[in-house]
């Protein structure tokens, strides 16, 4: 997950670049997760598994079937969105009134995806072909083009979601459904279709994360477990329902993790524990998360 940079010497540069990229990856996943949670009230623990599946789909299309990269990305996007929407419609949506059942279904679906990939591809590490080769000189730091590409893709997607929610014509209905599903119906907003749309966006974000960030590291069927914990943590740390909060929290957690790995390499195994400790501390002082609000109705 953490990638050492050739050419970059200074510690703070390593922390900054890796923190931004890993934070961006976490932010994309946390964003997709909190979108579907907010709009459809589905706590989709399988979300990070979609990220893992996307990485393997891209791997299959580009390295096994030998398509070129553009075709690969389009096919993967279509395939994954289709899969996500089918899983949502067939398995999650019918039982979504029972939140704890949805939670377990998501988790078990994630495990099923992991096992399927283990059967097809085995547990060894693989890597995706990089989109861009070469490096770029930035001041006195040298950064590979893949990193630049990943960073810009992450930022563009975050902007895109902001645009979707606050500027596009889908923004109002999506936010209306997120706040009151029943009343949204009365305004003629087809609530179930909005939920499907949100699911598609949420999966698309996972595919983008896989396409842009995964080529920097390695992929394996277990790669969803660590993001699962981080995504849950980020969504809570940022405050449930706050998109800004989840993104901020994703970057905070990534920087905590990356700093720990670079500053104290011997304690790298503690990265989960330290992230959790940060979250606990914040929750103790701000029980509603960074940007969360206690709604009157929820208490």
């Amino acid at each position, binding site marked *: 997950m953490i990638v050492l940079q050739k050419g970059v010497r200074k510690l703070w540069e390593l922390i900054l670049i890796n923190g931004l990229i890993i934070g961006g990856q976490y932010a994309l996943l946390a964003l997709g997760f909190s979108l579907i949670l907010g709009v459809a009230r589905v706590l989709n623990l399988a979300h990070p598994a979609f990220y893992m599946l996307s990485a393997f789909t891209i791997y299959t299309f580009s390295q096994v079937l030998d398509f070129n990269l553009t075709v690969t990305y389009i096919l993967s996007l279509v395939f994954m969105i289709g899969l996500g929407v089918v899983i949502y419609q067939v398995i999650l949506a*019918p*039982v979504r009134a029972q939140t*704890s*059942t949805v939670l377990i279904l998501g988790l*078990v679906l994630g495990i099923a995806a992991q096992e399927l990939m283990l059967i097809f591809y085995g547990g060894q590490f693989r890597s995706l072909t990089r989109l861009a080769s070469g490096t770029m000189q930035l001041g006195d730091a040298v950064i590979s083009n893949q990193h630049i590409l990943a960073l810009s893709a992450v930022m563009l997607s975050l902007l895109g979601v902001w645009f979707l929610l606050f500027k596009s014509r889908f923004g109002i209905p999506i936010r209306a459904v997120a706040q009151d599903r029943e009343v949204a119906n009365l305004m003629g907003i087809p609530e179930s279709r909005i939920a499907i749309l949100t699911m598609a966006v949420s999966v698309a974000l996972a595919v983008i994360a896989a396409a842009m960030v995964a080529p920097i590291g390695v992929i394996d069927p277990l790669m969803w477990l660590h993001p699962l914990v981080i995504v849950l943590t980020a969504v*809570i740390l940022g405050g449930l329902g706050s998109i800004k909060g989840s993104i901020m929290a994703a970057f905070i957690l990534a920087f905590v993790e990356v700093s720990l790995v670079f500053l104290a390499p011997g304690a790298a195994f*503690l990265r989960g524990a330290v992230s*959790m400790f940060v979250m606990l501390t914040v929750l103790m002082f701000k029980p509603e998360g960074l940007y969360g609000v206690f709604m009157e109705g929820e208490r």
Partner: protein
Amino acid sequence: MFAYLARKIWRDFQGEILALPTRTILFAAAVALLLLPLVTDDAYLLRIVATASIFAVYAASWDLLVGFSGQTTLGHSLFFGIAAYTAALLNLRFGLPAFLTIPAGALAAVLAGLLLSLPALRVRGPYFSLASLAMPIILMGLIFSFPGLTGGEMGLSGISRLAGTRTGEYYFLLISMFVLTLLMWKIATSRTALIFHAIREDEIVVRVSGINTTYYKILVFCCSGFFAGMAGSLYAHFLRVVGPSTLDIMMSLQVIIWGIFGGVVTIYGPVVGVFILYPLLEYLRIIPDWRMLIFAGIVVVTLRFMPEGISNKFQDLLERQCPRCKERNIFMRKECRICCTDIGTCSRVG
């Protein structure tokens, strides 16, 4: 005198157990498990049942905390792991026998319950779920940080046995399971549990009714911690190895799968869930590659069609509730067995 007692017991047995099909099924299953070693001496089978009884206590203690009082914890393995490690360390480092280390482990888990109730008093709902997820992960970090004491990744081994023979161990675990789950069931149907229920529904209303919710919240954490801790220390002595896997996130998530699969807010639901899912997962070892996939598939299909959990589903199918006195009746009855209300026409719950 004895004749009277025997008649009374028989009458109670008829009224409390035979009258309800689900209880009859549970009773028959319990008897079957007790008789199992007489029929077979398949060590593998007995071992699976014994392990399942430990996990049954663990799953039921989760239901006490999550189902009955709504403190949805994602870090239940904290109790299990802390108790297992305490029992193992006391046994190995100080040579204490099992009958001391098991309560000591449970006590440690009660203390962990106190610790876990701290965030529960401060944060609610999903925020608490995540705060609780953090605890075992942090503890696991500590265990890895002091490998000299805790054995690090390898864990601790060579813990003393529960009983001399396999059959002895089997009966010890099975009977402990019955006693502990019955105790939990008693707690869950007591007046105190009513307050737990009320806190789950609306904590603020309970508080303004003059009930000290802080006290009851801490109490339920300690209770649940005690039973999960009993399971943890029994596990340590039965497997004789304690590793970081007892604190693993999978350990916390598995208990949720068992609990929800079996059906929450019942105590016996999670027990049923464990006794179905744990042996299933074990026997799927014959096809190791497909094991988890098939397991996941079964859970998904079951929950997709019985989202309320398997025991609740069967209860709804086999029994119906009297609309007047809320007593349960077998589905064939036309009138309530307690208050004789006509229930033939009313719809089944669910």
